[in-house]
């Protein structure tokens, strides 16, 4: 149901039945290693190329979600997912393996919430009984496409971010008046915001205004205020983006407590890992939300969270042609239904 200008409410409360999270070696050494279902100790994951390893991440996350949800693949209607690589081929190749009717979506690092919002909407209106949705990214595959070869000795500035090697998938299903399940209750779809920043080594700074726009729209549309949520978590704004967003929100008259406003890109790695400003990538918000954050919700740490996944919609071509970085953010509210 449309509420306000750009938000959906999900009165039938689609259930996040199960999730699967896969990751690479850098994530295994990170802060949230216990929340991953599958961790690889090698970036190649037994494949011949990074892109193929990327596909494996998505496949494993999806398979794990199905297994943990205790459901046969034949009972799932749709697979909605995406990634960062040209023409989202890793996800499409994973969809070839999974053999489910497939929506391939691209929202850069906001893909996870774009998928979750669409899946929730479809389930809410009985468009499907079960939907599998997710996102993934692979550090070396993303570096190869967007930046330099993996072994190239270029110096990254302190504003740069580290692309997560990981995938996260969630299995959504229709709610049969259950209690004590994790549900999605609303979503806000963002518009593309471009504040003229051109530095691809500073994504957080470019994406912050998009996050602010979507968060403001969410609270306006839903008539809620920040105290409604136990946690507002952004996808991959990292250090600069988070600080900038906090300041902008305050300027817009929205006061959020600092420790209630977190960022997945600052949670996944340890302080001493050399990731500069923090983590990024389509797999960042997917892995942290579908792993760590939902585990925390199950343990009762949080009851209501708002996840705002941010994406920088640039390509190496647009950057080289001098275009500034167009950014987007999508928000989904996730609640423990009691």
């Amino acid at each position, binding site marked *: 149901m449309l509420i306000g200008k750009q938000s959906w409410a999900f009165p039938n409360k689609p259930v996040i039945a199960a999730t699967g999270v896969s990751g690479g070696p850098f994530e295994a050494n990170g802060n949230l290693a216990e929340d991953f279902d599958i961790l690889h100790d090698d970036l190649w994951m037994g494949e011949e190329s990074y892109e193929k390893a990327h596909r494996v991440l998505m496949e494993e996350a999806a398979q794990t979600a199905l297994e943990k949800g205790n459901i046969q693949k034949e009972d799932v209607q749709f697979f909605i997912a995406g990634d960062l690589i040209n023409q989202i081929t890793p996800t499409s190749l994973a969809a070839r393996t999974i053999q489910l009717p497939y929506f391939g979506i691209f929202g850069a690092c906001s893909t996870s919430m774009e998928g979750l919002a669409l899946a929730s909407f479809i389930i809410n209106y009985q468009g499907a009984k079960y939907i599998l949705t997710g996102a993934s990214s692979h550090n070396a595959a993303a570096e190869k496409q967007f930046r330099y*070869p993996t*072994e*190239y*000795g270029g*110096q990254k500035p*302190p504003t740069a971010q580290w692309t997560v090697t990981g995938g996260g998938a969630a299995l959504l299903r229709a709610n049969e008046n259950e209690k004590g399940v994790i549900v999605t209750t609303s979503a806000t779809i963002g518009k593309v915001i471009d*504040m*003229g920043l051109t530095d691809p080594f500073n994504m957080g700074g470019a994406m912050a205004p998009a996050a602010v726009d979507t968060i403001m729209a969410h609270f306006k549309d839903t008539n809620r205020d920040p105290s409604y949520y136990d946690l507002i978590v952004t996808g991959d704004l990292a250090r600069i983006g988070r600080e900038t967003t906090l*300041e902008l929100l305050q300027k817009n008259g929205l006061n959020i407590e600092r420790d209630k406003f977190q960022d997945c890109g600052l949670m996944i790695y340890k302080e001493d890992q050399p990731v500069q400003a923090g983590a990024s990538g389509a797999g960042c918000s997917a892995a942290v939300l579908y792993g760590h954050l939902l585990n925390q919700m199950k343990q009762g740490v949080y009851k209501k969270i708002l996840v705002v996944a941010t994406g920088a919609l640039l390509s190496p071509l647009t950057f080289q042609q001098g275009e500034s970085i167009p950014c987007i953010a999508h928000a989904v509210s996730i609640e423990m239904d009691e």
Partner: protein
Amino acid sequence: MGKKKNATPEQLQYQELEKKHEMKRPVVKNCIKAFLVGGFICFIGQAVSYFYIYFFNFTEQTSGNPTVATMVFFSMLLTGFGVYDHIGQFAGAGSAVPVTGFGNSVISAAMEHRSEGFILGVGGNMFKLAGSVILFGVFSAFIVALIKTLLIRWGVI
């Protein structure tokens, strides 16, 4: 920064706000690290150069080529074992400017694109970073040589 010209006041205002939160590159520290690491690489290069002069029939003029080849070989090993990118993050220009950095840019690109085959992958992408160094290096050498030739011909030098 031609792009800044077309920025709206709103964009400029935001860019100013955002700038405050950016971590600055530690320029002085980076310069010192680059100086030390770059100097150390050149020190090794000098040692290799003397090695060729003392143990083989090279002179100070002719020892350059085998020295460069040896340094690039070292750089290849370090790149292949995944060490050079860490040196690069630490040293910045210190490891990028010497010939080892040039070697690293070629070798890392070749390794990266091996998965696309030898012709289109390795062959087509090997010089994607180093290509512009070669092009503009050769071109500026040509211009400098041209100026020198003209000056000699005109009797200026």
